[in-house]
């Protein structure tokens, strides 16, 4: 059998032909030094993994060039979930856009809501009452636990333990129930409002959260017992998906992935927002930069989140949950139903929305479970943003994945995707 020298000779795409050919071409150009002259056993092949693949956490497509079981070089193809939400944002008021943020990182909707709200509040200079800030922190930390739980379940499932996924989902289910009580939705909650939150926590909800913070550490320690000394889990993750300190900085990976190489870059401490400077918590970091270190960091972060939630519950004092300024935020429903001004203001907020000053721009980021999630807003003085750029952590982390995959084994690909923990809804925007 004659070996064809170029991938392009072999490939005959039937769909999006230019696109496929450009990808293959780029894979070929990647390292010009790697040349396989002879391939008598036919071990060299191109493997298209995804976009429809149960282990790629969504619609991620990987183009792997294999030699036997080893990945010589790879390309990632993203954009299968591209909805153009930055374009949509330019045609919506700030508040109208919020449900779209729920669907970005759909594993932790609350963090995204907080990110949008804080960014708009920064550009329009809106003050938020203390109680609302604590409620937001509780929501964001619960979302972090929920996201890390899915990471944990999926990652352990990727290494072979199926039942574990169900145990983490048992806990996630409890968080869903809390969110159900929190803002009326289990999943895409949209509970934040610009200038505050939609409603106060009910006593029932607070007791549910308290109960969760008490019982969760017990479950957590059980999982640690199961996993930390588990030979199979350890061997599958240690020294897999290595990334060095320099590489991580160069590529700009974010979240637990950069903390796994020893950079304590966490927006909650680096650039404190909400009330994070008033609560005590630590930022777990590791030095190894492999998959196992990312696992340890996320496990520790869950306990830190519990610590933050407990402090928030203690520090919360009764008070307003939204700014009392109808030019900046939605009036409460009591006002809307029983006063003419309230009704007019409600209409104006829905119709025109919040208008930041013309010609200004600013950026605000929060620490989402996946890393730095920021909104850069340019305003032209109307209720719609002129440009809203979403800096999504999964996007930058996936770029790191492309680097990590080179030279690894094909069987570890799935584990590495799990370790990076990308969400395609966010990276594809």
């Amino acid at each position: 059998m004659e070996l064809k020298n170029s991938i392009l000779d072999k490939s005959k795409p039937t769909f999006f032909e230019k696109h496929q050919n450009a990808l293959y071409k780029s894979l070929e150009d990647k390292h010009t030094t790697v040349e396989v002259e002879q391939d008598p056993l036919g071990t060299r092949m191109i493997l298209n993994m995804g976009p429809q693949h149960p282990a790629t956490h969504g619609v991620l497509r990987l183009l792997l060039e294999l030699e036997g079981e080893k990945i010589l070089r790879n390309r990632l193809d993203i954009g299968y979930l591209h909805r153009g939400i930055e374009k949509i944002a330019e045609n919506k008021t700030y508040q109208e856009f919020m449900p779209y943020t729920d669907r970005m990182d759909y594993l932790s909707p609350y963090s995204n809501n907080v990110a949008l709200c804080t960014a708009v509040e920064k550009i329009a200079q809106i003050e938020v009452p203390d109680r609302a800030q604590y409620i937001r922190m509780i929501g964001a930390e619960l979302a972090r636990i929920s996201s890390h739980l899915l990471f944990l379940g999926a990652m352990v499932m990727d290494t072979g333990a199926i039942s574990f996924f169900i145990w983490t989902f048992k806990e996630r289910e409890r968080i869903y129930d809390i969110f159900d009580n929190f803002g009326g939705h289990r999943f895409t909650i949209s509970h934040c409002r610009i200038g505050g939150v939609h409603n106060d926590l009910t006593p029932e909800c607070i007791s549910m959260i308290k109960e969760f913070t008490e019982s969760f550490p017990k479950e957590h320690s059980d999982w640690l017992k199961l996993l930390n000394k588990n030979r199979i889990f350890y061997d599958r993750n240690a020294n897999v998906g290595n990334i060095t300190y320099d590489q991580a900085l160069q590529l700009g990976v974010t979240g637990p992935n950069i903390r796994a190489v020893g950079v304590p870059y966490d927006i909650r401490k680096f650039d404190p927002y909400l009330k994070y400077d008033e609560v005590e918590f630590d930022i777990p970091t590791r030095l190894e930069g492999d998959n196992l270190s990312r696992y340890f960091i996320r496990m520790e972060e869950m306990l830190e989140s519990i610590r933050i939630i407990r402090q928030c519950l203690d520090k919360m004092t009764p008070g307003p949950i939204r700014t009392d300024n109808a030019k900046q935020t939605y009036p409460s429903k009591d006002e809307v139903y029983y006063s003419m001004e309230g009704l007019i203001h409600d209409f104006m907020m829905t119709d025109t929305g919040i208008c930041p000053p013309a010609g200004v721009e600013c950026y605000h980021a929060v620490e989402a479970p996946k890393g730095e999630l920021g909104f850069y807003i340019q305003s032209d003085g109307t209720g719609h943003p002129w440009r809203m750029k979403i800096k999504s952590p999964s996007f930058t982390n996936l770029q790191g994945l492309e680097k990590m995959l080179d030279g690894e084994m094909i069987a570890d690909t799935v584990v590495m995707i799990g370790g990076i923990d990308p969400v395609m809804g966010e990276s594809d925007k």
Partner: protein
Amino acid sequence: MSRTEKLQSVIEDLKNQFEGDIIEIKQHAGDQQIRVSLNKIHDVCEYLFQKHHFAYLVDVFGADRFTSEDRFEVIYHIVSLKTGVRIFLKTWCSEENPVVPTVTDIWEGANWNEREVWDMFGIRFEGHPDLRRIFMPEDFTYHPLRKEFPLLGIPGSIDLPTTTPDSE
């Protein structure tokens, strides 16, 4: 020294070093945006990287200043992990020749971000190692975040699979 003072000292230093090429400095809610002339943007980036520890590139993105003179804008968002200072550098390029020098040689992570700017705005990056579209397929010829691109899309601009399984 507080973070704002550090930011000010960086800006002062930039003003001294690149006199005349720092065109405009805008400030809102604590964020400083520094506009740099197009032919010096790479030098400024390199200078900040080497002299002021701006080792971490958060983002590169574009914006469309529709109907303005220099239509496109590229914004570089960099952070110094040592001092905690955030800086936004921006540069403008014309509609007829939207070419900006790449910064992938300074921060490798600019690769995907620049591809995104190319995909969404059609701004080319000179010297970029692999300038392909990132979200849209190569077969697509428009740049959707430009203001003239309609929100509903352009019918027929993208080849979609037939929905009925039997048809060819």
